[in-house]
């Protein structure tokens, strides 16, 4: 569904990604793990067109789309929950969600309208948001803000949803609550890419796993059968002593 091919990208003179091959298939949950600075967020940003890449480095539903404008990518069906949530400050929860409905992907002819995300379905997923729908988002707790960010991304009607560190800075109980809804998102037919620093969380929540180190993919495979040792080696590098 979505794939990258020998993708290279960077910031100015600094090259951050070195020939990354990455793939998500329809309906799949793929985890992307790696230490700080391994290039996980950079990969997501390149896919979405926030960093310039060559046309054929990113393919989505059989077409080369690399380097398209981010808003065009979103309207095409690639959604993102950005790192740090990035809600629209000064706007209410409901207005934040409505921006996504207004400007997200429009259903194609023949697409099952009942399968589309609605504000009502987001409120069912996260009931607390319904109670606080008219509050401005900066008054919410971190977990609630993350729920708005996920809801907003879902309302752009993505076929693939990129989740950039959605557990970052949240209490374990809240992380649990948020990861609990992922199967429901998947059931709706949306493929998921989970960027995570918490390796065991990523392993449990995903079908397949990619590990990145210094701008390269160092390990890929089935999440369930992957050993801790293999992950540790790919995560820290071959010469690193396994703790």
């Amino acid at each position, binding site marked *: 569904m979505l794939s990258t091919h020998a993708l290279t990208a960077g910031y100015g003179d600094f090259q951050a990604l070195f020939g990354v091959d990455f793939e998500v298939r329809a309906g799949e949950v793929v985890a992307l793990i790696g230490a700080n600075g391994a290039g996980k967020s950079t990969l997501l940003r390149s896919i*979405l067109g*926030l960093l310039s890449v060559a046309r054929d480095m990113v393919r989505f539903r059989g077409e080369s789309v690399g380097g398209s*404008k*981010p*808003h*065009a990518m*979103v*309207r095409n069906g690639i959604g*993102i929950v*950005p790192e740090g949530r*990035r*809600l*629209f*400050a*000064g*706007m209410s929860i409901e*207005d*934040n969600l*409505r*921006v*996504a409905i*207004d*400007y*997200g*992907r429009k259903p194609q002819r023949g697409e099952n309208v009942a399968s589309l995300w609605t504000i009502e379905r987001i409120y069912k997923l996260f009931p607390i948001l319904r109670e606080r729908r008219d509050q401005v988002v900066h008054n919410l707790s971190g977990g609630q803000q993350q729920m708005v960010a996920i809801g*907003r*991304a879902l309302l*752009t009607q993505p076929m693939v949803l990129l989740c950039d560190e959605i557990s970052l800075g949240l209490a374990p109980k809240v992380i649990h609550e948020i990861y609990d809804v992922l199967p429901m998102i998947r059931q709706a037919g949306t493929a998921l890419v989970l960027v995570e620093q918490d390796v065991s969380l990523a392993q449990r929540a995903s079908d397949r796993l990619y590990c990145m180190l210094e701008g390269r993919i160092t390990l890929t495979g089935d999440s369930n059968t992957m050993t801790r040792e293999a992950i540790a080696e790919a995560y820290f590098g071959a010469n690193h002593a396994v703790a």
Partner: protein
Amino acid sequence: MQWLDALIQGVLLGGMYAQYALGMALMFGVMRIVNIAHGDLMILLALTGISLAAAFSLGTLSLIVVLVPLAAALGWALQRGILNKVVGEDPLPSLIATFGLSIALQNLMLQIWSADTRSLRGGGLESASIDLGGVYIGVLPVIVLVTAIVLTASLDFVIRGTRFGRGLRAAAADTEAAAMTGVNPKTIYAASTAIAVAILGIAAVFQSLRATVSPADGPAQLIYAFEAVIIGGMGSLWGAFVGSMVLGVAQAIGFRIDPGWGILFGHVIFLAALAIRPEGVMMKRR
């Protein structure tokens, strides 16, 4: 009676300022773009309007109908051609670019229209007045005030309650996150600036009916617009309206005390407002 008259004239003058300030409230208050050429654009539109009216013998209404789309196109081109390249977290590039534009526009206007002051003839409208028990109220200033109220209410509705308004507020809050939600920030900014300059087109017609305009008048109008937006509070359209009223009344009262003090009084009230309530009168205290 003298002070009541000053108050009424001040509110009416405030109506004119509210028309300058509304576009500024949208661009500076909501989009956070510092447009130093705001006043010069208004003067450019006023002089263009005066020339158009003379060339095609247009009445006031038909002039507005012709000038507003022209102004909108100018705003769209300004955003697409210049401002979209300089907007970002840092306000300095837009400030410098529009400062340059301001100087260029003033010189261009001087070249085309010379330094003469000009005005628009409104067929008696500009001098018509109503006598309300000793207080004379000009018909034109009342029309200006009503127009300002209608424009502010309409724009406020658009920003708060429409798809376009939500997209604009989203783009202004976090341009990148807005793009990640499907908003094309450049298009939406171009449309907003088109609206802001279109409103300036209306203000330009009223300004040239009410007073005279000459190529060097822009910067003074710019200051009034900035002051009104800041007195009212960044991001609040009604705030800019209230700020315009405060400015108008302060100037009218100043003029009544001493004819030399009017403009100064407005600036002093602005500085006082900035010292006492820097967040603006329409903003909640944090």
